[in-house]
């Protein structure tokens, strides 16, 4: 290969690289929408949400790390004392029931997806998955004996609460979740599957499945895994009655 050929090949490669990046930048700018004030305001709000979500993720990672450190220190103390060991076992059981430790076992997965945009001609967004839908499914699973539940990777605790607006699901101190939502439960697989497939359960969802094409897919599995809860779990205003 001559020197000229090498130079021209390198030149063409450089041009291709530049064109690729230009193209990427252009399409990205298109994705971000037209430069109207409203769009810019929305973009600013989106950036704020993304910044807060990053902080949220970092804080939750820090909490998980601190809990692991505390576990290790307690285990070290427990190895030197029988009474500490007994206490540690009690706390381990309580933590497991509170959702503070990961667990696995037979169970079900529920995949919940919003209907296509525009399917609610009334403009009330009834095609969207809501926090009430998630709440209803989780409550049904617990009523059917679920021993642990997680929603899109967020573990449910005895104090969990749901909120949100228009297709947004917020659980406890986690970031907003959007469709598709995956709910995973460990427990009596047959009982949970039967309840979820019962056409008389989850009435609001069943109607919107037909009218607005929301989808609810239930799958049983022999071994589901649930992560540990990774946010704050305190009851500072409550004391036990002595």
């Amino acid at each position, binding site marked *: 290969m001559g020197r000229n050929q090498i130079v021209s090949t390198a030149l063409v490669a450089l041009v291709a690289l530049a064109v690729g990046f230009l193209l*990427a930048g252009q399409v990205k700018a298109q*994705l971000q929408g037209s430069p109207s004030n409203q769009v810019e305001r929305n973009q600013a709000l*989106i950036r704020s949400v993304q910044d*807060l979500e990053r902080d949220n993720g970092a804080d939750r990672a820090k909490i998980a790390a601190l809990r692991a450190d*505390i576990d290790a220190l307690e285990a070290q103390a427990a190895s030197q004392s029988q009474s500490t060991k007994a206490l540690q076992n009690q706390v381990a059981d*309580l*933590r497991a029931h509170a959702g503070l430790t990961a667990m*696995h076992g037979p169970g079900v997965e529920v995949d919940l997806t919003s209907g296509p945009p525009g399917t609610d001609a009334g403009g009330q967004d009834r095609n969207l998955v809501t926090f009430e839908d998630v709440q209803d499914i989780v409550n049904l699973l617990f*009523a059917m004996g679920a021993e642990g539940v997680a929603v899109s990777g967020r573990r449910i605790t005895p104090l*969990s609460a749901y909120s949100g607006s228009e297709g947004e699901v917020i659980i406890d101190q986690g970031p907003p979740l959007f469709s598709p939502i995956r709910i995973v439960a460990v427990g009596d697989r047959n009982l949970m599957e039967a309840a979820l497939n019962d056409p008389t359960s989850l009435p609001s969802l069943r109607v919107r499945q037909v009218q607005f094409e929301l989808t609810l897919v239930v799958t049983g599995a022999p071994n589901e895994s649930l992560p540990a809860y990774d946010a704050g779990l305190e009851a500072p205003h409550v004391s036990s009655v002595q």
Partner: protein
Amino acid sequence: MAVWLIALLVALVATVQLRSQAEVERTLATADPATLAFSIDQLHRANDALEAQIGVLTQRKAALQSGGGPAADQALQDEAEQLRIIEGLVAVHGPGVVVVIDATGLSALDLEDALNNLAAGGGEALAVNDQRYVVSVPVTQTAGGVTVGGTLVPAPWTIVAIGDTTRLGETADLMTQQLRGDRRVRQASYRVEADIVIRSVVSEKPFVYAEP
């Protein structure tokens, strides 16, 4: 040949980059300003709570590091007590609100919504007609009416929630206003109390299917 390979690589990198970017922004980009503002408010509150939890855990870790065995016993006892409260295993007391709802035809779903509203509004311990409630306690519709943990809770419902009275008061106010607009509801009121006692507890259930 090399040029085509590079061009292909560039196109691939650009596509992957664009797809991942679009994926991240897909859900937020379709959200309206009200939803985004709600998310910002929720995330601020959530992040404050997470910071507070980090403070508590950092102190606990420092105490364990400096105190050895006795500090571990104390930390474990404190955590056990806190978790028994959270799981509804012991009788509790504290400041909170008492919400009374008298209605005909309200269902288990209505009660679950009310309990969730109070939990989201800062409720740390809840009970309905003296039946303790935590998330794993089933609220069920039966032929005889609504049950909480298997016990019938006929109207009127007296829901107590212990927690931050400022937040709970705001939540209860909003909730009762909305309920009064419901034709099925005869009466919906609330009061803030300095010390509420919940004596009922949840039965501890050992795991049958789950393993750590």
